[in-house]
């Protein structure tokens, strides 16, 4: 029941919201439903902590790892819903593009992501992962402009193709499991697979084959280079709250899937292969995205590339494995989600007020919009991994692991790319924030919903940078225990 | 007793200084077929200047007034470092030649500031050129001294002198030769003699030291003149002590001291003659040839340091 309710509410909620034709009523309904949903997620996370993994039938299950990702979803979606309530104030009523459609689709999107996290079955996981693409494709193309349609099409096609390969990977895994004597009913069940992996005699060759397809497939959704092509387009053209959701949660959910597979394959065929694949994809993503950040002139695309870079960092953490690497990677998913949401919110307000996202034509934000620029500064400092913000801690953990395992090439490239990314961010943000404003913003002040969300995100970054709260640390430990 | 002798040595350096200047001037005059002024003339000049009133530019500050005093005090202080008639000095400790050079630099620093405080173009010109010369002279000066210090395995002037005294005069090392060459060149630059600077020039555009003191008059000028006389004497005494110390008294007996004074006078006289010959024979270098001159000195002193490896053993 506890697992079903959080899944049922968004679906029912989406339908409910569609009934409200008045935008304000739709917004209110969405906020109310969102509050309920987040509370339920909170309860679920707490229950998982109290009682251990929860089951619901053969297909739903929530353990420590799921509850960590559920927490990320809860936090980010809370921020996004509140932020969107202010952000959508300019939006008129149109076919498929009105607040009610927006919220309805957001809830569907949330439903798919939550179900990704609570799937016990890898097949279901795949179905829901494809569902996330479908639910969000309309959101990406929400504005119906040339760019939005183009981005939406690319997103849909590229991700669907990628995901198709993940399906093939799932099938290969299924073959291996069935061949190893598991019953077809449980051959895609993650827990049974984890139990069976060390001893059931999976064909390691098939396992590796499966992992290749899975990492290419889900890697397309994560945004690993070279499958990342859809990502900057989608992030840049989607409405800002959706950009935040895509970047902070969707990529993370895909990463969650890869974590699950990585755990099985590592158990069955030794960690070397899957980890080195993760490391190489991580490094490639960091390097290419880092370089692209340097020359990117569109603020949201810049942030999108930064997401690719951070997914690379997380992949490196996973690929290194070890307690600190895993700790760093899991912590980084949370930290990145919060920081990136903050930055996207900031970028959204820039677009609202200045009507542009071109870095060169944004000047003097610190004079014209001091509150917003404070948020942007905090977000940028956090995202490049500087103390006292939390990303420093997670990157510190990953780096420690890299050096401790004497992965010197990885570590040095990691450090170099961090510096290059820092250079890119410093260059662009100094340009945007300082100097004389070249155009006056239409509405310099942030509305309460905007600044509360930004302040919350910033505070969260700061707090987690100074000290990881005890409860969260426990959650992290439980998540790590699942993967071990 | 020792302290008295050391004190007397210092006083000797201070009080005889104008005489040395007078002698050199007289010798130069003779070499140029003039009669020249009396050798005591510098004393009367100083006395005259001390009695005069002082003219101060209205824009100048306290630095203008303090500068000559600091210069004089610095130079006088340095006299306490140099052994003259016996191998001892008032201030005597390891590493003192760095201090000697830098105390001299202190005086020069303030004199340059005083020159700038006058507010005229000539003061600035003099100070600017002095800055060039002294900044380039410091390195060969210290390197030359370093070479000798390495040879003597001592870093105090008195110790070096005492070590040199024990050496055989005829067994002179390459290092000594090179270092002497370097230090002699530096000495000319430091004391503002030909070919680096012309102490008797009356043409403002060629002035270095004279340009700096152009605004000074009366007692201040007297202090400056006296100080530069002491400096000249001091540098000669230093060269004597380092390179031809033989003849210094070993004990404290009056006779040996008197003999040492006599020897010193003799050596001083030779130096004065040499200096006046150089000054008469050599033309002043163009301003921008001075760095080359000092560059040669630097090269010599560096060579001296390098040669210590083979000489020392």
């Amino acid at each position: 029941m506890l697992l079903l309710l959080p899944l049922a509410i968004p679906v029912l909620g989406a339908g409910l919201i569609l009934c409200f034709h008045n935008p304000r009523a739709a917004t209110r309904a969405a906020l109310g439903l969102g509050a309920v949903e987040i509370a339920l997620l909170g309860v679920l996370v707490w229950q998982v902590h109290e009682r251990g993994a929860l089951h619901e039938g053969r297909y739903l299950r929530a353990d420590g790892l799921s509850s960590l990702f559920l927490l990320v979803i809860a936090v980010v979606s809370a921020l996004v819903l509140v932020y969107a309530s202010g952000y959508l104030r300019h939006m008129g009523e149109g076919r498929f593009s009105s607040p009610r459609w927006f919220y309805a689709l957001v809830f569907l999107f949330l439903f798919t992501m939550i179900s990704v996290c609570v799937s016990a079955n890898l097949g279901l996981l795949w179905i829901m992962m494809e569902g996330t693409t479908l639910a969000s494709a309309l959101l990406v193309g929400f504005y119906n402009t040339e760019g939005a349609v183009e981005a939406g099409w690319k997103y849909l096609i590229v991700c669907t193709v990628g995901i198709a390969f993940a399906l093939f990977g799932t099938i290969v895994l299924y073959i291996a499991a069935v061949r190893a004597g598991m019953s077809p009913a449980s051959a895609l069940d993650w827990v049974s697979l984890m139990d069976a992996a060390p001893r059931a005699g999976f064909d390691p060759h098939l396992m590796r084959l499966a992992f290749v397809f899975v990492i290419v497939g889900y890697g397309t959704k994560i945004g690993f280079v070279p499958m990342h092509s859809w990502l900057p387009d989608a992030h840049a053209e989607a409405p800002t709250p959706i950009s935040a959701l895509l970047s902070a949660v969707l990529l993370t959910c895909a990463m969650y899937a890869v974590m699950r597979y990585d755990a099985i394959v590592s158990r069955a065929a030794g960690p070397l292969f899957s980890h080195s694949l993760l490391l190489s994809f991580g490094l490639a993503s960091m390097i290419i995205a880092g370089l692209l950040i340097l020359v990117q002139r569109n603020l949201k695309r810049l942030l999108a590339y930064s997401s690719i870079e951070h997914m690379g960092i997380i992949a490196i953490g996973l690929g290194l494995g070890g307690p600190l690497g895993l700790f760093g990677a899991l912590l980084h998913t949370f930290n990145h989600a919060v920081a990136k949401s903050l930055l996207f919110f900031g970028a959204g307000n820039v677009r609202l007020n200045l009507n542009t996202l071109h870095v060169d034509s944004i000047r003097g934000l610190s004079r014209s919009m001091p509150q917003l620029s404070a948020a942007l500064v905090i977000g940028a400092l956090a995202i490049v991994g500087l103390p006292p913000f939390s990303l420093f801690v997670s990157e510190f953990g990953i780096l420690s692991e890299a050096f401790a395992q004497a992965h010197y090439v990885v570590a040095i490239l990691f450090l170099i790319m961090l510096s290059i990314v820092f250079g890119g961010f410093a260059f662009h943000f100094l340009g945007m924030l300082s100097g004389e404003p070249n155009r006056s913003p239409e509405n310099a002040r942030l509305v309460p919903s905007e600044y509360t969300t930004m302040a919350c995100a910033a505070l969260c970054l700061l707090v987690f940078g100074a000290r990881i709260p005890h409860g969260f640390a426990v959650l992290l430990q439980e998540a790590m225990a699942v993967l071990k | 007793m020792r302290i008295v002798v050391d004190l007397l040595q210092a006083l000797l350096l201070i009080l005889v200084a104008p005489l040395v200047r007078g002698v050199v001037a007289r010798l130069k005059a003779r070499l140029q077929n003039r009669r020249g002024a009396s050798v005591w003339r510098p004393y009367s000049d100083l006395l005259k200047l001390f009695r005069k009133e002082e003219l101060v530019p209205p824009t100048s500050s306290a630095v203008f007034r303090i500068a000559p005093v600091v210069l004089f005090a610095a130079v006088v202080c340095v006299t306490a470092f140099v052994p003259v008639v016996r191998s001892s000095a008032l201030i005597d400790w390891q590493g003192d030649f760095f201090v000697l050079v830098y105390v001299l630099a202190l005086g020069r620093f303030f004199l340059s500031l005083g020159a700038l405080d006058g507010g005229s173009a000539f003061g600035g010109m003099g100070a600017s050129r002095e800055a060039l010369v002294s900044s380039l002279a410091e390195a060969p000066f210290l390197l030359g001294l370093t070479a000798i210090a390495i040879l003597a395995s001592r870093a105090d002037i008195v110790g070096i002198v005492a070590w040199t005294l024990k050496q055989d005069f005829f067994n002179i090392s390459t290092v000594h030769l090179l270092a002497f060459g370097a230090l002699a060149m530096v000495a000319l630059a430091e004391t503002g003699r030909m070919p680096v600077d012309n102490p008797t020039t009356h043409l403002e555009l060629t002035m270095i030291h004279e340009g700096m003191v152009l605004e000074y008059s009366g007692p201040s000028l007297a202090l400056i003149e006296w100080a530069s006389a002491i400096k000249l004497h001091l540098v000669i005494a230093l060269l004597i002590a380092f390179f031809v110390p033989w003849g210094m008294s070993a004990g404290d007996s009056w006779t040996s001291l008197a003999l040492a004074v006599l020897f010193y006078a003799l050596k001083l006289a030779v130096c004065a003659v040499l200096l006046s010959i150089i000054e008469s024979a050599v033309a002043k270098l163009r301003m921008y040839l001075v760095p080359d001159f000092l560059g040669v000195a630097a090269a010599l002193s560096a060579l001296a340091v390098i040669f210590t490896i083979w000489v020392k053993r």
Partner: protein
Amino acid sequence: MGLIGIATAKILSSFSVFLFLTIILLAVARRISTSVLLFGLQSAVITADVIATAFQEKLPEVYVVGVLVFAIKVMVIPRALFVLTKRLKTVRDVQASTTPTQSVFIVAAIIYLSYAAVHSYAGAIHVSDDALAAAVSVILTGSFLMVSRKKALMQMLGLLVLENGIFLAALITTFGMPLVIEIGIFFDILMGLLLMGIFTFRISDTFEHLDVSKLRRLRG
């Protein structure tokens, strides 16, 4: 055994040849409608294979899957695509970046490569080379169609072919996934096609063409 048994065995042993035929024809097809038709044929071949498998292995679940495949991939989707082409009133040409000759050579290469690639696996999982190679070459042909055809509709079609290949691979290696999962997958495909249809409408509304290679405003 009987007639059905013989037919089943024939289907199972020869369906790969039909599949190769469909993909070669897909490579040379110049019209979208022809391609859609070929896709329908391909799906029909697969349906036959599913049914034959279900009969031979006596798996009632797989019959359901077979009915689903027939309903969705042979009936619904080709029809929807026909309707779509009519409604969109675009040129009917597939607009390939490769000439038909090149395409045939590429498909031939794909088939050869598929044989080479599956050789080491096929023995390990007790499947005939032909069947597995057919599945893989259908996947690869789908990919090839997506890369080389500029029409949005052809990309959808390529995706469907790719999907067919994956489905086939699952079928011949494990006789299909659990039914619930299969149904979910079909649902996803349908929803995906629906969305793609919406987007093709939007593209033609916004850009007044359906050539995806011209959608290059977002780059860098």
